[in-house]
């Protein structure tokens, strides 16, 4: 897509006007989807390629970008957001919407909000990107000379855990977190092992951890795809949507697999903002506040029920 688009701009002649191209990829650049990663992730980390690793189209895109830039004379910036918090009108498949729908349905079904992901991950770290902060970053990077031909992590600047966020989520949606939620039975759980040679393995020698790095897994105490297919869940959504005049398709179109992955992978995701900060980037937002803002917007778009 990127290649064809750049070629198309050359065909029309519009490429001659280009000064800078800003490409958005993401933290899959570090292989966060493949298993444990070396934390914090920094832009100078070696790419995760070679034997035992699947192809990564982000790498292809960056290589295309760099070589096209060299030929044409414009320069480039790449950003790596992660676990994006935000709203996409008409596209319900994202972390924020799925979280809100999970909570809203659980409120309807009695108000207990069990964490459906990995018990191991519950008190481990994650780094989120607020879509609006990412936009501010892109506008900053567009004009900053020192960003020329550089890639940047782009996350909110804080580090969070679900142990911290889950009670806040429950409170906002009028639910309670069961005090002993991790002792409950898990009739619709799932486990998926990830890559035998996780990204972290590439640092094993230098870090003195050869033989100590185990593959990761996605452990869902409540497999969200199975959960979303339960009759009582679908009926609950239908009641909520009817009562509150919401977009009926929101639930059916949500891809629960994605949320299941984000909550179920059992290793830390810590992403460093040092590179951008050293060049003068000062943007920051508290991840819970950004979630609240996104929830507010979803409410105003009638995708999720009002909580206030």
């Amino acid at each position, binding site marked *: 897509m990127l290649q064809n688009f750049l070629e198309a701009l050359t065909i029309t002649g519009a490429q001659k006007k*280009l000064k800078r191209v800003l490409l958005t990829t993401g933290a899959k650049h570090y292989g966060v989807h493949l298993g444990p990663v070396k934390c914090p992730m920094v832009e100078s980390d070696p790419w995760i390629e070679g034997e035992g690793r699947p192809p990564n189209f982000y790498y292809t895109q960056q290589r295309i970008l760099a070589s096209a830039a060299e030929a044409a004379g414009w320069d480039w910036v790449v950003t790596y957001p992660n676990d994006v918090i935000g709203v*996409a009108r*008409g596209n319900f498949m*994202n972390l924020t919407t799925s979280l809100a729908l999970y909570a809203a349905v659980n409120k309807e079904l009695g108000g207990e909000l069990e964490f459906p992901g990995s018990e191991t991950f519950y008190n481990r770290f994650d780094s989120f990107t*607020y*879509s609006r902060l990412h936009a501010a970053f892109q506008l900053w990077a567009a004009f900053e000379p020192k960003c020329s031909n550089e890639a940047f992590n782009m996350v909110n600047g804080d580090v969070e855990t679900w142990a911290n966020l889950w009670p806040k989520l429950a409170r906002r949606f009028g639910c309670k977190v069961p005090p002993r939620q991790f002792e409950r039975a898990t009739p619709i759980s799932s486990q998926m092992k990830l890559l035998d040679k996780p990204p972290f393995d590439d640092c094993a020698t230098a870090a003195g951890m050869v033989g100590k790095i185990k593959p990761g897994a996605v452990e869902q105490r409540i497999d969200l795809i199975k959960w979303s297919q339960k009759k009582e869940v679908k009926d609950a959504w239908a009641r909520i949507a009817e009562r509150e005049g919401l977009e009926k398709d929101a639930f059916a179109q949500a891809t629960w697999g994605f949320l299941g992955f984000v909550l179920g992978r059992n290793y830390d995701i810590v992403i460093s903002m040092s590179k951008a900060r050293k060049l003068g980037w*000062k943007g920051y937002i508290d991840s819970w506040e950004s979630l609240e803002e996104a929830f507010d917007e979803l409410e105003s778009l009638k995708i999720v029920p009002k909580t206030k």
Partner: protein
Amino acid sequence: MPTAIVTGATGILGREIVAALSQDSQWTKIHALSRSQKDKYPPSVQHDKIDLTASAQDIATQLKNQGVEGEYLFFAAYLAKDDEGEASDVNGKGYNAPHLSTVYTERNPPYII
């Protein structure tokens, strides 16, 4: 006065890039490219219906027909595995103006030259 092209303009990240550009008066023209129906945009933003999965030549024809050019290309389009179905703006609502009040920056907004 800079001009911009944004691909993936209706996506979770692209829509905010379009919004931020449109809120910053120095950007005189913003081309918002997406396959689907447009949101309501302010005057500095022009929606261009573009299918990025087409060949380079086909894309070029689409770009030429709609006069798409710019000095800064914000490429936020992607084909994720779970990106099923067209994004559609069901009722033509414009998106809320983003308020950056809770985005903390020291003194100057980070993207002002």
